[in-house]
């Protein structure tokens, strides 16, 4: 068996290593706390592996550049935080409609606006889902440890390549700046997915034609398959259209390709959930406090478990519904005013009592915070 490499890394550094391992060879970014270390790391690492780093004039340009690089056939990513993530939204929509794979790391800090640049928050959960205008599916993954910053980044690239979608890697300042010992798997043991490329002769290539997966093969500029890419609604050849049947077909295919992949895309961790009477649903750094709280509660004989969605979007409805049916109460601690809990409440048909715990003071949610909340139900 190939050997693991052990390193002491920061979350942001692990994201850099994950991206390089996944085959990312282009990064465009703009400095912003608390995501800057990703740009710094990429500026060091990419030129070592014949990749390219460019510091753009703003986050709008960064997003445009990574889409361009991806269209030229190179796996690409950018990294930012709240204010920069807001600036990227228009071009994220472009990547959705033109089906350009790319990864955007959003290291969440307190908001709105300039907010709390050096404090953690989870206040972009809804923005990752609905930040760009128009109906669109999106994949959002959230690591809760430094080791996961590596593995989930690899997964983010794999999903973006497989489904031709932008994937948002959303975590918070705590995970991004924390240092932990991590076991990095050897390259050959990693599953790396590359986008499907056309194998037909160029004159047979129909760039946006539907198939069983709903994901058409993607040619790179310069490969000889000359085609048109646009942010306008387009027909199967990529040409602008407003014909209702063609418009409807495109928008529905974009959704269907993600709906069909839910089993592959969605991933979550069940911690002490087997006999749990109360579940805590938490993600990114808060999930760490949630796990500790569950351990402490069990020492008092309280059957508490944790469900931790790694895939924040598409919302893990089946898992959450199943949990709601099997526990009497769910506690949802979040460093926001209740963004993920809204979704849980939306699917709760009176199955379980839902209790929210919201901290918006720029401080982490501690196990004690959660245990105090637990007293309301246990």
């Amino acid at each position, binding site marked *: 068996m190939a050997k693991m490499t052990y390193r002491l890394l920061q979350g942001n550094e692990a994201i850099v290593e994950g991206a390089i391992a996944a085959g990312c060879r282009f990064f465009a970014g703009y400095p912003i706390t608390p995501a800057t270390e990703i740009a710094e790391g990429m500026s060091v690492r990419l*030129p070592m592996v014949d990749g390219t780093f460019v510091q753009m004039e703003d986050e709008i340009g960064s997003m445009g550049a990574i889409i361009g690089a991806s269209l030229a056939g190179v796996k690409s990513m950018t990294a930012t935080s709240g204010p920069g993530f807001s600036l990227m939204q228009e071009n994220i929509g472009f990547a959705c409609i033109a089906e350009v794979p790319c990864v955007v790391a959003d290291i969440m800090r307190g908001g709105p606006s300039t907010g709390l640049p050096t404090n953690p928050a989870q206040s972009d959960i809804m923005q990752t889902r609905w930040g760009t205008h128009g109906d669109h599916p999106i994949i959002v993954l959230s690591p809760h440890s430094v080791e996961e910053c590596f593995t989930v980044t690899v997964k983010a690239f794999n999903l973006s390549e497989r489904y031709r979608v932008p994937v948002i890697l959303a975590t918070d300042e705590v995970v991004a700046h924390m240092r932990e010992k991590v076991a990095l798997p050897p390259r050959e043991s990693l599953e790396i997915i590359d986008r499907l490329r056309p194998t037909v002769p160029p004159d047979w290539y129909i760039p946006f034609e539907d198939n069983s997966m709903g994901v058409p093969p993607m040619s790179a500029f310069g490969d000889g398959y000359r085609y048109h890419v646009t942010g306008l609604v387009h027909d199967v050849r990529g040409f602008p259209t407003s014909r209702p049947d063609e418009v409807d077909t495109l928008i529905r295919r974009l959704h269907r390709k993600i709906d069909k992949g839910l089993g592959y895309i969605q991933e979550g961790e069940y911690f002490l959930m087997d006999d749990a009477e109360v579940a805590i649903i938490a993600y990114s750094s808060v999930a760490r406090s949630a796990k500790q709280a569950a351990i402490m509660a069990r020492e008092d004989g309280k059957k508490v478990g944790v469900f931790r969605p790694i895939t924040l979007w598409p919302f893990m409805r089946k898992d959450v519904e199943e949990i709601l049916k099997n526990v009497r109460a769910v506690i949802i601690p979040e460093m926001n005013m209740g963004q993920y809990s809204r979704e849980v409440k939306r699917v709760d048909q009176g199955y379980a009592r839902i209790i929210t715990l919201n901290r918006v003071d720029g401080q982490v949610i501690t196990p004690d915070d959660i245990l105090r909340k637990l007293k309301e139900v246990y």
Partner: protein
Amino acid sequence: MPEYTRLIYNYLRHDKKFPHVWCPGCGNGILLGSLIRAIHQTGLTKDEIVLVSGIGCCGRLPVYVDFNTLHTTHGRALTFATGIKLANPSLKVITIMGDGDSMAIGGNHFIHAARRNIDVTAIILNNSIYGMTGGQYSPTTPYGMRASTAVYNSIEQAFQISELAVTAGASFVGRQTVYNARLLDGLIEKAILKKGFSVVEVVTHCHTQYGRQNKMGSAVDMLKWQRDNAVPVEKAAKMSPEALEGKIITGILVDKELPVYEEEYNKVRAKAKGLS
């Protein structure tokens, strides 16, 4: 079929339903013809060319031609072009933008692309108006002219696109009118062949919006206005600033050798690998 028509025909996409979106008499078609002739002269293949546009009337230009084509978001063509060029430097990337696209919403990207000296050719169609949205004033609408958002006449000073490109550090800057289409062919060809960031400002007309609102007559009248007001840069050098007021200085404004980003980045790679 005349030779010129045949040449252009060879570069058009025949599975795209013509007619195009432009008004009869628009200068965009003249520029498209000029661009095709220039590319043909360079000897570059269709596969090597990536044509990137932003939003506006000229944003629709790439869809008609048989290259790798990309129609991006408003003002961002140069950012997408930067990514394409850096990801695959063997491609020849040409952007098509309007005056609003490149100078207003995309103004910041423009000066930084010039400063970075990425090997991209930026063609800017300057018709001094937002045409597609119905004739609002743009950053190049001259002071005192009328627009649908300046019915009391514009009180803003206009940007000089080419002069801005020179100041921002572009390797090559040229300006020409669509009236002088043959000269425009040669200018675009030189810009494409230039290593580094090259800019061609194409002075054109929007008789539908700008011309109508400012009572400048038909497309033909506006072309004649271009003919009568264009001054070659060599001649302009001998004229007083007063005599040049309202004139269009045409020709090559700057052509210099500067370090190109992609080549500089190869040095970065060598350093990162400990090779130098």
